[in-house]
Structures are given as structure tokens and as C-alpha cells.
């Protein structure tokens, strides 16, 4: 059976090399994945080092130098009140990434916990079964709303602040993790080792925590990075319509929005540079998402390592 042989060979191959080496090989074979990590790392570094690197304060208006085009003095120009766009663009990841990561993690934790509970009890009857059913219908209702409108409504009702945006992002993402986790848990619930755990006398909660969740986390983890990118877009979108963070907090979406009105009169830079930064960062997260998907898929991963091994053998020959 050539297929079985090849698989065994690939696993053997993987076993011989360290994980890091495999990662590096994958990076060489799929350079776009590496690009994703580089972009995200750059965004994180820009945010972290902004106070050291930024030539100007990101929140200080300087009316004497409003709407200056890119120059040696202001690399990316200035906006309508004279704030330095470069300084603001590199400060922005502090807010955008923080909001997106916090919102996504919060939704992942809450969504996974509820999803695990619901999945565990979905096939059972009684009150718990009904409750699980109700939770799923509530998730249906939440997902039936256009995400953006739902987020705007949340921010409008809770008040405009960074915390609210985080909450809004977490809230609209919860159903995604809830569903992922539920479907995983429903499969795992039937496994012998779960039965064994229950027979051994562990409570439902402990069984879920010790044996079900750790085995069901894969798809949710793969979803994380894609979700972070998407949440950055949502954060920027909320700010663009004025429902996000408060001005003059450096944030890409609000920068695009406030610069947008100048585009029609020829001053493109206040809007275009934050727009580019936003697009590139989201692209970076999407590449990372693809790579995680690959790593999390044993079939694809096996195929890739097999290809890599074959290539190495060819080179050696």
C-alpha cells in the first residue's frame, strides 16, 4: 500500500527532525506564511516601540502645520489639525491590536466554555438539554443580526470607550467559538475515554475540563488569528462610523474616517497611510490564520512534510 508507506515515511521523517526545523522548512516551502508572521511582528513592534520611534506626539494638534504632504519632516504628512500621521500610524497598533486581541480572547474563552457545556449536554434530555437548546437558539438570533450593526448598537447602548469596543467585539464573536466548540465536544463526548472518566467517578465539570476541552480546542485555536484580523477590521469600522474609540486616540479606523473628507479635495495622505497599515496588518493575520489551519490539519501537514522530505531526498540524490 504505497499511501500507507508514504504516510509512515512522512511521520518517520517528521520524527527525525525537530519541530522548529519543521517550522522553518514549512516557512521556506510556503514563504507567504513567514510574511504573515513578519507583518504581525512588525505591527506589534511598531506599537511597542512607538514612544521611542515616533518623532511627534500622536495626540498633539499643531495647527501651524495642517495638511502637510509627506516630506522629510513629516514622513507620512500631517492631518487636518496638524498631527503627524507617521507617529499616529505607529501608535495605532497599541489600540487596534490590544482591542482586537482582548476582544477575541474574551470571546474565545467565553464561547469555548459555553460551547463545551452546550455540546456536552446537547444530546441529553431534561432541563440541561433544554437549556443547551435555548443557548443555541440565542446564538442563532445573535448571528442573524448583521455583525456590524449589532456592534454599533452595543457601543451605542453601553457608551463609547475602549472597554465597550472590546466587549462589542467579544460579544459578536462568541457564537463562532460556541459553535466550533459545541460540534467538537459533541463528537468527543462519545469517546470511550470520556465514558471512562465518568465511570471512574469524575463529575461532569471535571470531565469537561480535564478530558473534553483539551481535545476539542484545535479548531478554536485555528480560528483565533483569523478572528484577530477580522476584529481589527471591526474596530476600525466602528471608529470609522464614529462608534469606536475617542478622538484623538491614534487608531487606524478613525484616522481613515477623519482623513476621508480631505481625499475629495486632493489630500489623500491622512486617509491612505492608515488604510494601508490596516490592510497590511489584517493581511498578516489572515496569512497566520492559513498557516495555523495547515498546522492543525494532520492530513495537509502530512502531505506537506512528505513533499518536503521528498524534495530533500531529491537534493541529496
Amino acid at each position, binding site marked *: 500500500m504505497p499511501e500507507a508507506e508514504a504516510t509512515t515515511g512522512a511521520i518517520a521523517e517528521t520524527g527525525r527532525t525537530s519541530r522548529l526545523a519543521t517550522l522553518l522548512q514549512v516557512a521556506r516551502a510556503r514563504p507567504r506564511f513567514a510574511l504573515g508572521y513578519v507583518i504581525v511582528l512588525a505591527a506589534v513592534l511598531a506599537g511597542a516601540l512607538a514612544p521611542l520611534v515616533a518623532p511627534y506626539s500622536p495626540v*498633539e494638534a499643531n495647527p501651524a502645520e495642517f495638511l502637510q504632504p509627506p516630506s522629510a519632516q513629516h514622513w507620512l504628512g500631517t492631518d487636518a*489639525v*496638524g498631527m503627524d500621521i507617521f507617529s499616529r500610524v505607529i501608535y495605532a497598533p497599541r489600540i487596534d491590536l490590544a482591542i482586537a486581541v482582548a476582544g477575541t480572547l474574551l470571546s474565545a474563552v467565553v464561547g469555548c466554555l459555553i460551547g463545551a457545556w452546550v455540546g456536552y449536554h446537547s444530546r441529553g434530555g431534561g432541563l440541561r438539554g433544554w437549556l443547551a437548546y435555548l443557548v443555541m437558539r440565542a446564538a442563532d438570533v445573535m448571528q442573524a443580526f448583521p455583525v456590524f450593526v449589532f456592534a454599533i448598537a452595543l457601543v451605542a447602548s453601553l457608551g463609547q470607550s475602549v472597554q465597550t469596543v472590546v466587549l462589542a467585539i467579544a460579544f459578536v464573536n462568541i457564537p463562532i467559538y460556541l459553535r466550533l466548540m459545541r460540534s467538537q465536544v459533541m463528537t468527543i463526548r462519545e469517546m470511550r475515554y470520556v465514558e471512562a472518566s465518568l465511570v471512574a467517578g469524575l463529575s461532569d465539570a471535571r470531565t469537561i475540563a480535564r478530558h473534553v476541552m483539551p481535545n476539542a480546542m484545535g479548531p478554536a485555536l485555528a480560528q483565533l488569528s483569523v478572528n484577530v484580523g477580522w476584529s481589527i477590521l471591526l474596530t476600525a469600522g466602528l471608529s470609522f462610523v464614529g462608534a469606536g474609540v475617542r478622538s484623538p486616540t491614534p487608531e487606524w479606523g478613525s484616522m481613515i474616517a477623519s482623513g476621508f*473628507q480631505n481625499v*475629495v479635495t486632493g489630500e489623500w495622505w491622512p486617509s491612505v497611510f492608515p488604510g494601508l497599515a490596516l490592510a497590511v496588518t489584517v493581511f498578516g493575520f489572515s496569512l497566520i490564520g492559513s498557516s495555523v489551519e495547515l498546522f492543525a490539519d494532520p492530513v495537509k501537514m502530512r502531505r506537506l512534510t512528505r513533499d518536503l522530505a521528498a524534495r530533500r531526498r531529491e537534493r541529496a540524490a
Partner: protein
Amino acid sequence: MSQHQAGPLHASRRNILQGAAALGAAAGIGIASRPGPAHAQDAARTLVIASPATPQGLDIEFDVSLGSIDALGALYDYMLAYEKMPDPKAPGVMREDIGVHGDRPNGLALRGRLAEKWDISPDGLKATFVLRQGVKSNWGNTFSARDVKWTWDRKFNLKGQGIFQTAVLGLKTPDQIKVEADHVISFSLEKPNPLLLKQQCNLANPIYDSTKLTQVGGADDPWGVQFLKNDSAGFGPYKLQQIVRGQQAVFQAREDYWDEKPFMRTVVMREVPSSASRLSLLQGGAVDIAQFLQPREYMSIGTSRTLAVDTVNASSMIWLELNAKIKPFDNVDVRRAINYAIPHDDIVKTVYYGLADKLTAPVPYIYPMADPQYFSYDLNLDKAKQLLATAGLADGFSSTISYNAGDPVQEPIALILQTSLRRIGVNVQLEKLPAGVFYENVTKREKPIIFYLDSPWTPDPGYATFLYFDDKSYVDYSNYSNPKVNELIEGGLQTLDDNERKATYGQVQKILMDEAPWGFIAYPKYALARKAKLSGFTYYTSNNLRFQDFARS
């Protein structure tokens, strides 16, 4: 009456799509769909306006939004009007002659509209108006003194904005307005009132066709409130042909109008929420007028041969309400300090591109008796710090500035203020409020600092100061209260002697500038972007267009 000037909303994808849709529609209505010489003539006599909003309502009693006030000036006529004069600074633009004219009766340059003659008794307590004969409404009913009486009775009964109109004239009961003959009406006052004639010109006092409105309303709706939501019954030069809110309103010139027939036979007001889209439509030739652009957009029209921008000094003012009931703004020195930290020149240059002047008085600078000599708040951060120290706030304090998301100039002004205030140790957070919530917050008077843009429609210092600074006024949004100021303002509203009034309101302005209930920012100018061949623009202190003014060369 004061008017909320909701500026154009910031652009969104939806707005742009709407703009694109309007482009097609406006072109279709105006020009493209009507070939041939006769139709070319029709197109020349069709005025297409890109507006931020179509009229919300058509009843001034309940609605003073932007589209509504433009509609009002076309659909209704008024008892009196100011004479027109060329704007001294803007060639080709006319404006109302609102100055004090010692040589004219009652010191005003007025012309008769629905009233042909008028007379005020020597004691100033009774005004008699002889009305024009042979005037028909858009429903064919003949105008008489009963229509004027019914119009004012309606104010007393509905208790909308009209109740302010009655109060400002000191009218307490409908009986004070009396039909003396079929075409003669009188107003009897308890005290002389210098606003009596001026209010007859105010956009908020249109005369209704009472015959039509009593007929359509019946017993259920005796004041025609339902009918006037979507239609009109007046004596103005246009009638409403169509209104589809959010899309367009169409006005048709009346063949049976009593005065000169308007040049523009049809007026189409298209709703285009984004100012950038309105500008694009004008540049593409699809509309004749693009209303309420942003300062930068007006400047971009600059040297175009086919387009023109008229800019005139206006009655609008923009300021910060420094809430005198919220600490630390209850302290006069803190309010003064804020004023010394306002970089007026930067704001006028950077945000308005010169299309504004600094706010140097608590009344519009174009109004008679406005006096800028008491303004002393040129940017002086040292003085501001000193005043804060005097107030016991040498280390500064924190506060919030709330502004209107619907007015694109407020955020940049707030950002410039925030930076300037930081330099005197005052850390302000900026709070952006959606337009609807914003006005609610202004009227609630619970924000420490909130922007306000307004214009007192009647060109009179007593009217303006009463609105904003008398603690009996519902528009005293800064919670300012000074019995001495109340006394002066109200005293000035009970004398007809212009010299005495000038001295009184000089004193009022001096106290107000000293006690700084506002953060004085700017007088934004009124600008109109139009096709170069369109002429006749006239500026009114109510900041609305009157379609009958326009012609095409």
C-alpha cells in the same frame, strides 16, 4: 427663533452610493430627459439643489431642520420683509438691510408683503396693519385678516415654537390680536416692544391659509397639524409638488402668485447626505447648488470658471457652553481662563480656511448694536494659567468637551482646543455625540463643556441676548444667571428708543464678555456653492435659501 444648524454628516459608503444615485436622478430631472428647445427652456428654469436633507416636516411650529426652513421661505409669504441691499463685501449677492435707520418710520428699512401699510401708535402699544387685497393661496382661497388672526391663534393653541413668538412680543392672550376689518388687523401690547415689526419678518411667522386648514383638519385637527406635515397652505410663490423624505422634494412656481413670478419654475431639492458627494454633483454639472459643503471643499472650487462660491458674513455663531452649574465653571475666572486658551486664529485658519471670523461679541456681528470692543480674549496662555491659579486651580483640572458628530468642523476645533488647554494644565477628554443625542444633551444642560452652533433669526440684540443669557429663556444652555443682566435685557425689550437700547445692550455685552458664560469661538460665514451662471443669491439672517431669488443668465 433660533436654528440648529446640523452640518453635513461625515461621508460613509452608504452616503457615496446615495450620492451616486442622486447624480443619476438629478441629471434626469434637470436636463437629460428633456431634449428640444422648449425643454431646454424648461431646464434653464429648473433649479436643482443638492441638500444634506429633504425637509423633515413642513410645519415651522414643530420643525426647524435645514430642509424645512428652505421649503418654508418658498411656500409661505410674510407680513413684512426687510428691504434688500447689495452685500458690501460679496459682489452680486444681496442681503437684508437690517440696520438702524433713524430717518425711516420705526427706524427700520421694511417693505410690505402681505401687509401693505402699517402703523404703530405713539405710545407703542398698538400696531395696525392694512393687508394686501386680491392675494390668493396655493389652494385658491383669498387672503384676509382672518388668516393672520388664525395664524397667531394657532401659536397660542399648539404651544410649539410659536409660543416663544408670542412670549417675545409680550402677547398673553389671543384677544390681543384683533380683526379690525376684512383687511385690517391690530396687535395690542401691554408694553411697547421693539420686536413687533421685526417679528413679522421672521421666518418662523409664516401666514397660513386658514380656510383650507380649517376645512382639511375638521373638528379632530382644528389647526391642520396632520395636513401640514406633508403639504402646505400659504400665500408664497411656490407650492409643493412632491415630497419623498430621504430622496427629494419638488416645488412648482405658482401662476397665480400676487407678486413677481419666480424665474425658476421648478425647484428640485435632492437629498445627498455626504458633502463630498454634493460637491461632486455640482462639479459634474448635475446640480445648480451644493448646500453646506465643508470649508475645504468651498476652497477647492476656487478658480473654476463654471462654478462660483458666494461667501457672506452671517448670523451664525459657534461657541462652547461653559456650564455655570457644574464645577469648576461656576467660577468666573475658570471661564475666563478657558477663553484665553482658545486659539481663535488657528481655528479660523485651519478649520474654517478663513470662512469664519473670531467670535468677538455674544450676538451676531452683523446685527445692529453688536459691539466687539469688549472682547479681550486673544490667545494668552500665561494669563489663562494666572486666572486658574486665582481660582485655586494652579495644577489644572480635568473635564470633558462634548461635540456634535454631525458637524464636521467641531472635531478639529475640539482637537485644537484640547492641545491648547493641555498647555494650561486642563486635560479634557473629547466626547463625540451623534447629532440626535447631541441636541438632547445640549438641552439637558448636564455636560460641563458642550459645543453649540446657532443663530438668533431676528436681527436684534435684545432678542439674541434674551435667547442665550436670560435665565428665563429655554435656550440659556450654559445655565448662566445674572439678575442684573436679566433686568437690562428685559428693559431693552420694552423701549423703542434705539439710542437707549444701544447703551443698554452695550452694557449687557460688556458684562457678558467679562463673565464669559461661553467659550467664544467663531462666526462661521454663510457660503453657497453654485453654478457660475446662477444669480440672485440673497442672504437672510435665518440662513435659508428662497428659491424665488434665483435666476439663470
